[in-house]
């Protein structure tokens, strides 16, 4: 290459190609996304965060929470479950259908409805089972369920998708899991007091936690007539001196409001799932993955 002009033209073309591919094209595809109704409902998703939670996003950013926590649930695939919801009047025929499907007849299979009949089967088998049961006069539903270690840990009901971040600026996806994923921490841990205690002294609520305490988000002050509503109840070494209380600062309260607002638990067109009743509650009481 003899001429500097050719050199810079080459560089410009190479950069322009990647610019068109990874800036222009995503802008055309993702930049026009808008709030959409959730699948099977009329509520628009995602909603802008309310005021205090929006302030909390700034606290989350300022303190680099995304250096240790991701906000993106990974989904490996989907699977289907078949749930028997009604038996109908011809129980003998339903039991025949059970035999045809290779299901166990032990433990009164037609009682305790709704009841899981098949879990983790492919869609074709689930559809066949549903049709067979309905032909026998019973009613069964086919539930689509996301799979993967994150789902199994209860970190979410589906994988994260681009629409989940529509209201975020900046998007704080995170790239490290030195702490657990927080995409649905508002669903899993809906108690503000739990979060305040966790920020003040993580070991109080999570045994063997490796998270550093964030005591600078709290202040110790003299009790004015009666303790504040959000004063932390602390024992032992952590208890403040008599007549004093530990309360969250504005930043601390905002951060907790933001954490409680982190919920991406609704089914979308691009991320479908059909959660059986009680599934979200189960995820909320996750005992495997403590934050």
């Amino acid at each position: 290459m003899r001429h500097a002009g050719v050199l810079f033209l080459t560089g410009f073309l190479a950069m322009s190609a990647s610019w068109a591919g990874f800036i222009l094209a995503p802008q055309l595809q993702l930049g026009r996304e808008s709030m959409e109704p959730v699948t099977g409902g009329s509520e628009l998703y995602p909603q802008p965060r309310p005021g205090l939670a929006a302030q909390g996003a700034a606290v989350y950013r300022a303190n680099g929470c995304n250096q240790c926590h991701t906000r993106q649930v990974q989904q490996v695939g989907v699977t289907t479950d078949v749930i028997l919801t009604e038996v109908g009047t011809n129980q003998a025929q339903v039991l025949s259908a059970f035999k045809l499907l290779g299901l166990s007849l032990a433990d009164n299979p037609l009682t305790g409805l709704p009841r899981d009949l098949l879990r983790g089967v492919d869609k074709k088998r689930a559809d066949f089972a549903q049709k067979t049961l309905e032909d026998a006069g019973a009613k069964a539903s086919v539930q689509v369920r996301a799979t993967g270690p994150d789902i199994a840990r209860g970190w979410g009901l589906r994988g994260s998708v681009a629409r989940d971040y529509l209201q975020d600026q900046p998007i704080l996806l995170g790239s490290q899991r030195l702490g657990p994923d927080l995409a649905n921490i508002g669903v899993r841990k809906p108690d503000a007091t739990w979060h305040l205690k966790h920020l003040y002294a993580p070991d109080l609520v999570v045994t063997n936690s490796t998270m550093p305490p964030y005591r600078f988000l709290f202040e110790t002050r003299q009790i004015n007539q009666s303790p504040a509503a959000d004063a932390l109840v602390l024992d032992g070494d952590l208890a403040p001196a008599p007549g004093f209380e530990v309360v969250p600062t504005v930043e601390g309260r905002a951060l907790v409001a933001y954490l409680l607002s982190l919920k991406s638990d609704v089914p979308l067109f691009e991320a479908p799932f059909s959660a059986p009743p009680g599934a979200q509650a189960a995820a909320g009481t996750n005992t495997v993955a403590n934050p």
Partner: protein
Amino acid sequence: MSQSPQPASPSAEPSPAATGSIDASCRWPLLGLYYGAAGWLVVSAVAYLLASMSFHAPAMFADCAYSSYGRMAPLANNLLIYGFCIPAGWAACLWMLARLGKTRLVHGWFVIIGTKLWNLGVLLGAIGILIGDGSGYEFLEFPLYAAWPMLVASLLVGISGLNTLRARADVELHPAQWFAGLGVLWFPWIYITAMLLLQLWPVRGMAQGAVHAWFLAQQQVVLTGLFGVAALFYFLPTLKQQPLPSRQLALFTLITLICFGGWAGVPLTAPVPAWMSVLSRIMSVCLVVPVLALVLNVWPLHLRVQGDEARYFRFGFRALLCWMTLVLILNGTGVWRVAAFTLVHPGLFQLLMQGCGTMLLLGAAYYILPRIAGRPLVYPALARLHFAIAAAGVFLVVIPFVVGGFQQGTKLADAEVVFTDVAAATLMPIRVASMGQLLFIVGHLLLSVNVVALIWQVVRGMAKAFDNQPAALAGAEGRA
């Protein structure tokens, strides 16, 4: 590719008389760049160590927001990239452009002013992260008010580099000039794009993620690649006193690096349309093409090359090969799923930036500094010691991160493992890496000592010459 590779002309060095003049033109602009870069490198290493302290004693900084891990870690990363790698890369590129162009550095004042603005921007950015104004985009955390002086500075340096390239004596460009020329101009192009679309007029939702991924690939793969390969193509043939084996392979390396590198930034885990992740994965694998072309050109040169600086180039080159191997394993197989969100990724970052980029740029710095100062290094033994300490530091940081990261990923993939056990698995690798960070502090301090001592000697030499001037003038008048 050509059937008969043409060697790059080794002639490219100017005559000894011209060399002195060229180096003198680079003296203050480049000493300024190296002075700031060496200082920020030490501060970055200190910040890395402070960040890792949270994993030794979590409550150590419980009452101090400024020193929390969430602020120290991005501070360290940003200072390594913007404080050291970019200014040290510019310094090496400007010097190569002047030497290979057989011309004095054009608009050296632009570089001097640019250096001051750049360091001001880095200082503002560092303060911004500490007081909680960080942007939240990883490796691009400096706030907008720090970006403006940095952008102007990069344009000033770019203008100087471009005009030095235009003022060259020979029309024919040496391969190192291709890389160095693009190296001094690449950053303002990508930085202005990222700052406009992420901070000034931010795009919506995950479109920000795409812009961010594009910027990171351009910065960490392409820009580091341009700096590093320019150094390898200039210094290895010069130290070995042999021409670069093939211009065509060098051209192929350049084109494939800038074509593939810019696409390699989207993580496979990102919640973006699948085509982006897949395309990025393919391009990451394709990076093996420029690396192989580089290996064919440089491998014979890097063996048995003599000189203190040569050890830095050898180490940096081999670190690049290790990085490429890991990238191939991660992107070419299903291993990426185990490595996702683990310490493997900071390990890869450290391998690329500390093991490859920093080592190559340190080698260039130790070669260039005595020449532009017009006198040997004050403490050459410290430069040798710096290499040993920095190399040990790279091993102590990268190996625990990569090995520990895979252990962390294996546990993370098993939902039966309680998360606190997964988190606990990261403690030992990070604690071992702290020793590497400590070594970096000591090693990089040695560079600072050499740079400061050299500048002090240059200033003292100038002062002596100035003091002797009246006597010389008086003698001349007496003779008249």
